[in-house]
């Protein structure tokens, strides 16, 4: 029973921290809960949310995908180039570029038997170089004539389009994880890859698909990036993979795989996004002047605390079983 309780506490910790942060902001800053702040926050963090969703599935299998930031940059460049041809070609091109890198990652990890860390480090460098080549080392302006920018800057029902897209992706992700054999196999492979194979589960196919999915979602994030900022950004995406890993882990997904949560990942993204938001407000108040670089320090500390807590929980879980 103790193990179940502590697990519940672990799952809820991120939500509690999120609620505390929102309460803090609401009480301290006048415009914190204003519609403008909320939609701005969601519009921008929707990109990270998409990348983190793909990352969460990869981590649940016990892998890692370092290439997501470069893939987003590459996709933003590709979609910016194609934006003149219309919304559909631009989206398809950007997502397609992401899927292509994901396919390569998946094939190298499963068929090639390479370590995910090294594989995706290599494709991260490759995708980054490709993005710079295609962009000729500068921002690629998008076409404003085809309505492409709407998917980054527009609203539907007063709610930012990127946030709608992320919301739908997370609903889909939650269904996939909880209600399909694929989702359960993801967790089984991450929990014990050999066992999953001996149980007759399609381990290799599942791992391949999570890398493909991660690439596709990073590509989609890149498309939204280009639309939101009106340009393909070959040098964006640096550190996105670390943000995504941090959000996933803060959300209760074990870095070693086997245990994970889609909702927790979303909460993790919001939490890390809010830390940045609150720092901005704090500087606006003028009482203190914290450099934005502090956000990285605070995020880092947060991640450390969460990982320490996870290790504790894990030890508590393993003890009663023996």
């Amino acid at each position, binding site marked *: 029973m103790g*193990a179940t309780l502590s697990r519940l506490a672990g799952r809820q910790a991120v939500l509690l921290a999120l609620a505390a942060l929102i309460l803090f902001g609401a009480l301290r800053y006048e415009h914190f809960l204003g519609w403008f702040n909320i939609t701005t926050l969601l519009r921008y963090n929707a990109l990270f949310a998409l990348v983190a969703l793909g990352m969460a599935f990869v981590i649940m299998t016990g892998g890692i995908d370092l290439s997501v930031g470069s893939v987003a940059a590459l996709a933003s460049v590709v979609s910016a180039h194609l934006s003149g041809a219309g919304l559909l070609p631009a989206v398809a091109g950007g997502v397609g570029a992401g899927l292509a890198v994901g396919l390569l990652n998946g094939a190298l990890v499963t068929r090639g038997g390479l370590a995910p860390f090294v594989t995706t480090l290599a494709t991260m460098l490759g995708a980054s170089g490709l993005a710079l080549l295609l962009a000729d080392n500068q921002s690629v302006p998008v076409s404003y004539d085809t309505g492409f920018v709407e998917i980054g800057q527009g609203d539907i029902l007063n709610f930012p389009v990127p946030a709608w897209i992320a919301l739908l992706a997370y609903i889909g992700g939650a269904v996939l994880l909880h209600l*399909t054999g694929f989702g359960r196999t993801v967790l089984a492979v991450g929990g014990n890859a050999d066992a999953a194979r*001996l149980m007759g589960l399609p381990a290799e196919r599942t791992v391949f698909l999570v890398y493909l999915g991660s690439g596709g979602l990073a590509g989609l994030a890149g498309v939204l990036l280009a639309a939101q900022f009106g340009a393909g950004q070959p040098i964006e995406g640096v550190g996105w993979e670390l943000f995504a890993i941090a959000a996933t882990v803060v959300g209760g997904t074990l870095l070693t795989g086997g245990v994970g949560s889609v909702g927790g990942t979303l909460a993790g993204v919001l939490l890390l996004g809010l830390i940045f938001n609150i720092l901005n407000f704090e500087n606006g108040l003028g009482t203190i002047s914290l450099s934005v670089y502090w956000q990285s320090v605070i995020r880092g500390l947060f991640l450390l605390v969460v990982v320490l807590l996870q290790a504790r929980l894990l030890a508590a879980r393993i003890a009663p079983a023996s």
Partner: protein
Amino acid sequence: MLLSMRGIEKRFAGVAALSGATLEVAPGEAHALIGQNGAGKSTLIKILTGYHRCDAGTMEFDGQPLDPRSPAEAQALGISTIHQEINLVGYRSVTENICLGRESRRFGLLDWRAMHREAQAALARLGLEIDVRRPLADYTTAVQQMVAIARALGFRAKLVVMDEPTSSLDDREVAVLFDVIRRLKADGVSVVFVSHKLDELYAVCDRVTVMRDGRTVRVAPMDGITRLQLVSDMLGRDVADSEATGAAAQAARAGEEMLAIEGLHAPPRVRGASLSVRRGEIVGLAGLLGAGRSETVRVAFGADAAADAGQLRFEGRPFSPTEPREAIRAGIGFCSEDRKVESIVPEMSVRENLTLALLPHLARAGVVDEARQREVVDRFIRRLGVRCAGPEQPIRELSGGNQQKVLLARWLCMDPKLLILDEPTRGIDVGAKAEIQALIRELAEGGLAVLMVSSEVKEIVDGADRAYVMRDGRTVAELSGGRLTEDALMAAMAHGPHEAVLAEGAPHE
């Protein structure tokens, strides 16, 4: 026959693992499969369950030719396996572990309620009622074992392969498992049962296949073969013509007691081990696989968790090492059973491997004194006759026998009082084997106490002054002098002390 595997051959990197193995199982039969380590049981089972594919031979299952290319394919055909180490996913719920791979679906999505119900029903069939929503790791090993069986049955298995299913169960749990096996038999399901515990085979199996050196050497009904015959088939030594060759003289010369173990308990593998080793004496520790020999000596070296109960004395003083370094400081050396995994660092040179344990003593202010190191290495390479191109040759390029000599040297250069050798000549060719055995004898004559775990009856009879026999975690016999014969050892391994064969060799507790 439900299953028929004939003339199965399999080579790994040119080395034959199976050469003419046969296994036939009738419907509703519990069939025992036994053999020493390396006899080929695991390989045979992995071929049956689609993990490996055989090089030659014919296989038939349920009247159809059988050639599974993956565990999934074997499972689909009705062959399920319960592995020795429970191969399920501890983080995931009991339900997932039972149902994954053939999930219930509604509108294309998982139907969790139906899956929970099914998991509960499957466990109820095995007489188990637990909360199936909780992670598997929350439950005991025995429950996990039952979950593995429930999973196997859920796939409508016609044949369930159990690879040492009882190795981590206590007596009561074993009884429950046997109940399950009997129920399976009644339902017409066949079971292949791999175990080293002879009592279990007699309790639950109908027939037995004995393997040795990659081939099937005997198939017999359980009630038509004696324990002694089984053991001698496994070991490949004829009960009738083995003769006493015990080295008795040494026993008299042995000095004061170095190590004493009394009533050691370290469940699940050790349940009452007792032995003692004196200066200048080679003591053998015999027993079948899983008898708890390695586990006992590892406790004495501080390599595994401390014991639950029992006493250890070293040089007459109470001794309970929690870390190998404590044991090393006290003067104990230990060559582990698994050279590759636990002993050698393959990319390092002979010199580095040899002086790994000595390193702290060779350093002055943290810097290794290389001149002294080289001097030590040269001395031991010469003394043990290690055949290598030079001290800088990577150890992985050496033969097994020469690697073992380097490992012996690693401990000898520490000038230990007691050397524990776990299977010192496993995987070493005949010539090198004799050399190493002679070396061990020489060391003992120099006053070293040696405790030698071996699965080879002949090695113990030829090499040891005295020997203990362990069975199911307990010391069941002590043999020395003229009573230390291959017959007596095998009889003790098969029967234990209760059979009166060895009344005079009871443990001195």
